């Protein structure tokens, strides 16, 4: 088993919010460069790695493996007496914010400022808004600096990212912010490592997309530019845990999930299922009746349409500063992807059917 943990920890120690993914992209390019034949970035900054397949170029189909690298977070909307008011970038439940450590990316001085999200007391809020959930528009960041020091450093539009540090927990789990979806980037990296010693007929387009959390902007544009024959999206699914149960949730450390639904081509699902059984990787069905809420929803609609698949890693406490994932599941996802790629025959597209 490769030791992916240090890379994953580095990935969840940087920000890289939607629309400003550079810190994550830089780490990914460095890690992938020795594993691929070509590496580049799209106009919107998605990372494209190409690992060439064994078939003759004119006959060679391609499989895109897409993992979004952007993070949810916050943006500065106004500054009052040194207190920094924020709005969300991506989906954030305001209830998880009070007391959370954050990093303010101060553009005025290019500094990273430590801060805490503060919840004002009831007497400073409108009547009736102080005792229950305090809306995000009333929360603000305190950096410990004076108003003068803040105004020199911080501007409206600056990013604010979660400041929790990665922490290893029992049972081979890791907790931190932005494991959605850097854990999948780590899985794709494991896939590329496995493919170093595996022959594969198809080109592999390893892609770290931007702006999934806000618009699927990376998936739409990278999908158009690369025009893969098929696409596999790797993202997070919900882990069973406090407050989360039911058909959409899966136990941590017990394997990865395969999507079923309108965003997924059933033939790709079938192939993944066969491969998983052959190499004994536990998988569960992840039912997505309308949307997958992943880059797959965008990729399937590009040009004349692309057959897509969704593979997911269970994660507890999604979109909080304390997301939790089992390393075992990341390794399983990486291996499953590599085995799937290696299984793609030259004539796979002639066999792909709807019935």
């Amino acid at each position, binding site marked *: 088993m490769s030791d992916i943990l240090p890379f994953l920890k580095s990935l969840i120690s940087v920000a890289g919010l939607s629309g400003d993914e550079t810190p994550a992209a830089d780490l990914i390019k460095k890690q992938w460069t020795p594993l691929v034949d070509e590496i580049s970035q799209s106009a919107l900054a998605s990372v494209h790695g190409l690992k060439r397949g064994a078939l003759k170029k004119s006959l060679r189909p391609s499989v895109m493996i897409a993992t979004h690298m952007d993070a949810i977070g916050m943006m500065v909307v106004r500054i009052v007496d040194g207190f920094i008011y924020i709005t969300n970038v991506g989906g954030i439940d305001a209830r998880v914010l009070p007391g*959370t450590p954050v990093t303010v990316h101060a553009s005025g001085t290019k500094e990273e400022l430590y801060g805490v999200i503060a919840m004002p007391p009831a007497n*400073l809020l409108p009547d009736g808004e102080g005792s229950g*959930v305090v809306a995000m528009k009333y929360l603000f960041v305190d950096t*410990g600096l*004076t108003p003068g020091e803040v105004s020199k450093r911080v501007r409206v539009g600056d990013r604010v990212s979660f400041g929790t540090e990665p922490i290893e927990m029992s049972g081979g789990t890791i907790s931190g912010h932005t494991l959605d979806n850097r854990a999948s980037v780590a899985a794709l990296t494991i896939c590329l490592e496995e493919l170093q010693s595996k022959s594969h007929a198809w080109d592999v387009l390893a892609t770290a997309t931007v702006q999934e959390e806000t618009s699927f902007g990376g998936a739409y544009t990278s999908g158009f530019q690369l025009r893969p024959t098929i696409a596999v999206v790797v993202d997070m699914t919900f882990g069973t845990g406090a407050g989360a149960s039911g058909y959409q949730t899966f136990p941590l450390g017990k394997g990865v999930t395969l999507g079923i639904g309108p965003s997924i081509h059933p033939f790709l699902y079938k192939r993944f299922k066969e491969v998983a059984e052959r190499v004994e990787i536990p998988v569960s069905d992840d039912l997505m009746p309308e949307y997958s809420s992943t880059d797959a929803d965008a990729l399937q609609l590009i040009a004349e349409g692309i057959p897509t698949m969704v593979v997911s890693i269970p994660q507890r406490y999604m979109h909080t500063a304390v997301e939790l994932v089992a390393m075992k599941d990341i390794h399983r996802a990486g291996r499953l992807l590599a085995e799937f790629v290696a299984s793609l025959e030259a004539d796979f597209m002639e066999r792909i059917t709807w019935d």
Partner: protein
Amino acid sequence: MLTIGSPQLKLLEKLCNAMSVSGDEGEVRRIVLDEVKPYADEVKVDALGSVLVRKQAKGKKSMRVLLDAHMDEVGFMIVKDDGNGFYEFRTVGGIDERHLVGKQVIVGKDHMPGVIGAKPIHLTDAGERSHTVSEDSMRIDLGPEGKAKAGDRATFATKFKRVGPSIMSKSIDDRIGVAILIELLKQAPYDIELCLAFSVQEEIGLRGATVAGYHFDPDLAIAVDSTPARDLPHYDGAENYTYNTKLGLGPAIYPAHSPVISDPRLLKFLQELGAKHKIPYQLRQPGGGGTDAGAIQQVRSGVPVISISVPHRYTHSPISVSRVDDWKNTLNLLHVALQEMTPSLIKSRA
């Protein structure tokens, strides 16, 4: 002037990062014992676990002055093992449950890392998001092989940080008072008999101070604590009249906090000292929120008391914010008070 340098910051960092939930203050007690032993004439740990320290006066018998700072912090107790690494817990002390979801915690003597999770936003609707999450529905998650047991204490995992003019940490309330008392002991002897109570269980009813006050039977007592600064903006820009204290204005001297009225002679003495030595101070707005002074005032036949606090923002939350200058000025005001205090201070009521 006494200063706050690297040794003082290092000690406060160690004190703040320790776990010392009310009723289980061992970690901070051990740090305090190590610090005070070389300087004290008498050290004892009492029946409840408070550390009681005595330093005799320079000269002959003088009046006996008690300084109190509490060692305990608000936190959690594990009350039930739910299996698979999930634990039910209850808060110990006044914690607003809105500060809990999505936080890193540490559990037990080995500081096992854990998290208090939250249901993903994707699985909630707007109606659910308009309701707070109740403490009894939350769980501490230690990971699938977590090993804690009912009775273990837990607290926020945030670490002490020095940032510009500030410190940002859990448990500034009242490790900053503990640090100040240790520093004053190192400056002793004074012309008074100095008694120090590093008390337990303040956050759950001033219990340590109640018996420590009885033990020392002091002529006067000062509670050294940390009080909320609510010097924050009003949502619509209106002036904030109810700030309690403000960061950066110096030690907060208490005229009164319900139901304790400070001794007027001590209140006057401290303000005059501030003016004389040009040490900035502020008067804490009278109102709720107690200190150990409330317990000590009523032991035996009564003790003249007052409280002095270093202000902090965001009480009992994962990260509070205080100013280093307020800490320094609190230390210095108390230092000159101990130097210049004489028995005449409390002899007459003129």
